[in-house]
């Protein structure tokens, strides 16, 4: 897996990108670099601008201001048909008047590739996506997953530098979706293409990506590897969007030289890691993942702890979920792996909950990281 | 016998031995709505009348008072050519038309061949008498045969050459229109039966009309192509040609209803009438009651009204044609009396009124259908 750092120039480079539709500001201050061979996901809620950003890369929209370079060349004047980019559309956009084979061969035919060569490449690609036995079907005869594979093949067969995927799994059932995610990773490794993936589903993003670009209301909130973004979110938005989290609200005070403390209703928490660069007198929260908390004894040096009462327990096979209310009135959740034979507290128990200091993040209450 | 040309009154009207008469006064297509009222002296009037007539000949205005006094409403369908009338009767189940006009040329076709005319009870029409009507119209074979009255003569007139006196000299013959200076400046009316007699006369076969052999028919139309070459358009109705005359694109109309003159004068263009040596084309229209009529009494009352001298004068003035009623002449204006010398009416009609080419093939002569086809070919440039 490519870790996203490369000594060469990035394949796609957006600088100071702005996009306006009339009075509506769709994208603000976009600075993004994507390297060759990566899988980068543009992640965000519906309407955040991720699709617009992707269409700008594809050439179906243009930046209101800023530059877009692909392979070092400014492509502002390049129409979509001339960019070394291919797209997999959300609803596949397969051509109904052509069968699977001709759909996949379309791009090659347009470029003037010879018939024999065309046939060879199309067959190879159909094998890759495992659709070779269905090459004579028309799209009315294909299932959703099959259509998706054809769309993928149609785009990839042209050997693009960049493959854009616009929420390609949105229309599929859960099981098929999971299967296709695996397929796509496999295909990316096989072909070595650069994938720019757009989705609102954080699971897809975490499973698939080398790096995640989190977007909210047209601005880039954070760009990081999935695990980094998960464990070290730098904004409240990021913390809440990726996975589940508990938020302890409080106010920051200066507790010593270079020391901050978060005053909550459960007492002060000394701020250890300050990724979000919060400062004194801000209203802030401490974000802790439910699985980072446990009912063990706490170590004052290494852990934070609260006392709480268990409101509810949900047994879910491999895990149990606990709903608790702290003495200070804060509601939160704890997730525990079920080990055979382990004794777990029940509803009504008063427990001591602790978590490692470095597993928590203190975040300001504003949405965007500075 | 030929009639000597008169210099005044009837202009230089000249009649050849057989002058064809055709009703023209082109009208538009379509159905009209207005109801006509008929007040007979005796017959029970009332109800509704369905009438087929040339536009302006249905007496909408002239009989307005009579209609309201008698509770009669009338619906008129305008016809654009006489053929529109028989078209209604071709395939069984004709509509209940109470009154229709027919041009005298069609009398045999309607009365004897198609048998769509029902006899008129003249006892119900007191205005039909020898005192009121000119002699040439009273009990004559065209309208009175086998002891029965089939048609009631109503209006007559003639079509002739019309020309713009600013743009050209008064022509002496229709052939004057072949002058090269008039190329593209004349108009021909798309009225088949209105042109046919003239087409025959222009090749000297006027006396034979309507019985020409197929060969003669071909020759006549071949000659007529010369006129088409001179034509700017073959106009489908009066309003149409009036526009072209008014815009001065057309300097002369080959043979048309002089009532166009009033339309054009109103726009300040000096359109005049000329009676060339080949003669005008005379026509007489009569009312008849079709076999499908349902309001027969009111129809009779209507016809009676149509022969009232004052009504006659009004209609004749309105459509710029001539009345069949002697007594109507005194009610005509000076212009109308200047146009036609009514004292000479017997002479005008002396050569009789010819018909239309035979409908059935007698083996020798061109049939009505042959003429229609020739006319269609003429229009299509063949």
């Amino acid at each position: 897996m490519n870790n996203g750092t490369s000594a060469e120039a990035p394949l796609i480079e957006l600088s100071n990108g702005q996009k306006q539709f009339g009075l509506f500001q769709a994208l603000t201050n976009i600075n993004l670099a994507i390297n060759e061979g990566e899988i980068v996901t543009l992640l965000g809620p519906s309407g955040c601008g991720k699709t617009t950003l992707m269409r700008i890369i594809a050439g179906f929209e243009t930046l209101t201001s800023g530059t877009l370079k692909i392979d070092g060349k400014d492509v502002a004047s390049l129409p979509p048909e001339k960019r070394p980019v291919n797209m997999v559309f959300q609803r596949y956009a397969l051509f109904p008047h052509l069968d699977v084979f001709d759909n996949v061969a379309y791009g090659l035919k347009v470029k003037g590739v010879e018939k024999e060569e065309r046939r060879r490449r199309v067959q190879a690609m159909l094998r890759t996506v495992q659709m070779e036995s269905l090459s004579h079907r028309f799209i009315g005869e294909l299932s959703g997953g099959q259509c998706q594979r054809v769309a993928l093949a149609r785009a990839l067969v042209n050997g693009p530098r960049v493959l854009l995927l616009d929420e390609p799994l949105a229309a599929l059932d859960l099981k098929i979706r999971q299967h296709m995610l695996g397929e796509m990773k496999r295909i990316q490794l096989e072909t070595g293409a650069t994938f720019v993936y757009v989705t609102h589903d954080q699971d897809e993003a975490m499973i698939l990506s080398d790096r995640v670009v989190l977007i909210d209301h047209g601005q880039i909130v954070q760009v990081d590897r999935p695990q980094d973004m998960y464990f070290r979110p730098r904004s409240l938005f990021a913390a809440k969007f990726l996975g589940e989290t508990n938020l302890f609200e409080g106010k920051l005070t200066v507790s010593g030289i270079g020391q901050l403390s978060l005053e909550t209703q459960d007492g002060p928490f000394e701020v250890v890691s300050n990724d979000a660069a919060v400062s004194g007198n801000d209203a802030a929260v401490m974000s802790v993942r439910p699985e980072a908390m446990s009912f063990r004894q706490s170590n004052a040096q290494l852990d934070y702890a609260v006392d709480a009462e268990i409101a509810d327990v949900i047994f879910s096979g491999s895990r149990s979920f606990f709903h608790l209310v702290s003495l200070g009135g804060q509601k939160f959740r704890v997730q525990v792996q079920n080990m055979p034979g382990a004794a777990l507290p029940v509803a009504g128990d008063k427990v001591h909950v602790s978590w490692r200091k470095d597993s928590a993040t203190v975040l300001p209450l504003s949405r965007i990281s500075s | 016998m030929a009639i000597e040309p008169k210099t005044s009154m009837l202009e230089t009207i000249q009649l050849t031995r057989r002058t064809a008469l055709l009703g023209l006064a082109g009208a538009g297509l379509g159905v009209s709505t207005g109801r006509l009222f008929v007040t007979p002296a005796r017959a029970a009037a009332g109800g509704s009348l369905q009438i087929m007539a040339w536009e302006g000949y249905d007496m909408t205005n002239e009989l307005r008072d009579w209609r309201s006094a008698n509770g009669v409403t009338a619906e008129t369908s305008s016809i654009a050519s006489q053929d529109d009338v028989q078209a209604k009767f071709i395939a069984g189940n004709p509509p209940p038309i109470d009154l229709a006009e027919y041009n005298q040329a069609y009398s045999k076709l309607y009365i004897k061949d198609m048998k769509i005319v029902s006899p008129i009870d003249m006892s119900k029409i007191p205005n039909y008498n020898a005192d009121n009507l000119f002699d040439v119209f009273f009990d004559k074979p065209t309208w009175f045969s086998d002891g029965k009255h089939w048609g009631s003569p109503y209006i007559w007139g003639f079509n002739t050459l019309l020309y713009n006196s600013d743009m050209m000299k008064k022509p002496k013959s229709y052939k004057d229109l072949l002058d090269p200076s008039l190329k593209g400046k004349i108009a021909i009316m798309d009225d088949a039966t209105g042109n046919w007699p003239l087409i025959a006369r222009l090749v000297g076969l006027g006396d034979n009309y309507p019985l020409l052999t197929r060969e003669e028919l071909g020759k006549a139309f071949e000659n007529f192509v010369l006129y088409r070459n001179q034509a700017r358009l073959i106009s489908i109705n009066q309003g149409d040609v009036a526009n072209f005359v008014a815009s001065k694109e057309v300097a002369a109309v080959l043979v048309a209803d002089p009532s166009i003159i009033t339309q054009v004068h109103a726009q300040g263009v000096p359109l005049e009438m000329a009676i060339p040596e080949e003669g005008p084309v005379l026509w007489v229209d009569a009312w008849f009651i079709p076999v499908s009529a349902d309001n027969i009494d009111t129809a009779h009352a209507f016809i009676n009204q149509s022969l009232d001298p004052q009504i006659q004068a009004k209609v004749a003035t309105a459509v710029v044609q001539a009345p069949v009623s002697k007594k109507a002449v005194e009610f005509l204006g000076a212009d109308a009396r200047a146009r036609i010398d009514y004292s000479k009416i017997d002479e005008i009609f002396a050569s009789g009124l010819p018909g239309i080419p035979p409908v059935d093939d007698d083996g020798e002569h061109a049939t009505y259908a042959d003429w229609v086809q020739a006319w269609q070919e003429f229009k299509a440039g063949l």
Partner: protein
Amino acid sequence: MTPSQRTGGILAAPAATYMLLFFVVPAILLFSYSFWISSGFRIVPDFVLTNYISAIRSPLFLRVTYNAIVIGLVTASVTLCLSIPVGYYLTYVARSKIIFYLILVTWFSSYLVRIYAWRTLLGTNGLLNAVLLQLGIVDTPVQAFLFSPFAVAITLTHIYLPFAILMVVSAMSEIKAELIEASRDLGTSALGAFFRVVAPNAAQGLIGAFMLTFILVAGDYVTPQMVGGSSGQTTGLLIADQFRKTGNWPLGAAQAFLMFLVSLVIYALVLALGRLTGLIPARRKTKPAREVA
């Protein structure tokens, strides 16, 4: 019969009955008339091919039918070519209600009014001549604009254009804009996308627009009568005359059905041409999909 089939049948019944009573049956009647003969303004039942043969042999009929076909093809082609960019714009570029309504509004003016309008425009003193004189392209007004096949074609194009645009927009609406983007993504220009993707998928609708315009134009007789002059006469008037002037309904019916045949032939030719140039794809029967990953 399933409940939904029954409901469908009931809903379709009124329209189907109407079509049957007022179109199919009269058409069959007319067809049977075409084998009768006419004599003296009466029609007589018979079973002969005289009418068809005499129509085919008549130079007049051939000439006016030729005119009808040429004018029909030219008008339909021009109309389609003009409708496609407008339809494309309305479907994919800007769904402008204003333009759409403007197009519809032109339809509200009466048919005859338009004919008279074109008469004035193309006449000796008309706008066209005035412009040409002004620009010095001609010295004297051109008389040949009016009363010619050209006048007929331009008038009928004007009359049927809104109709064709509506049909083209309707056909193109079925083709999602995404397909054009996909085609461009794969390397064609926007124009290329039209020919390779939109046209084949909208082919039925486009051909429908073409053929309907052709049929309406080829059968029209009011316009040729009023602006066609001698060189622009078409079959329609001939057929009308058979019904009105000569009372020869059988001949008129035969001529009408010959025109019908002509339209069928043209349709077949258009389809063949479309298939040949690849604008119309060869379709296969498709089987419904099964849910499979």
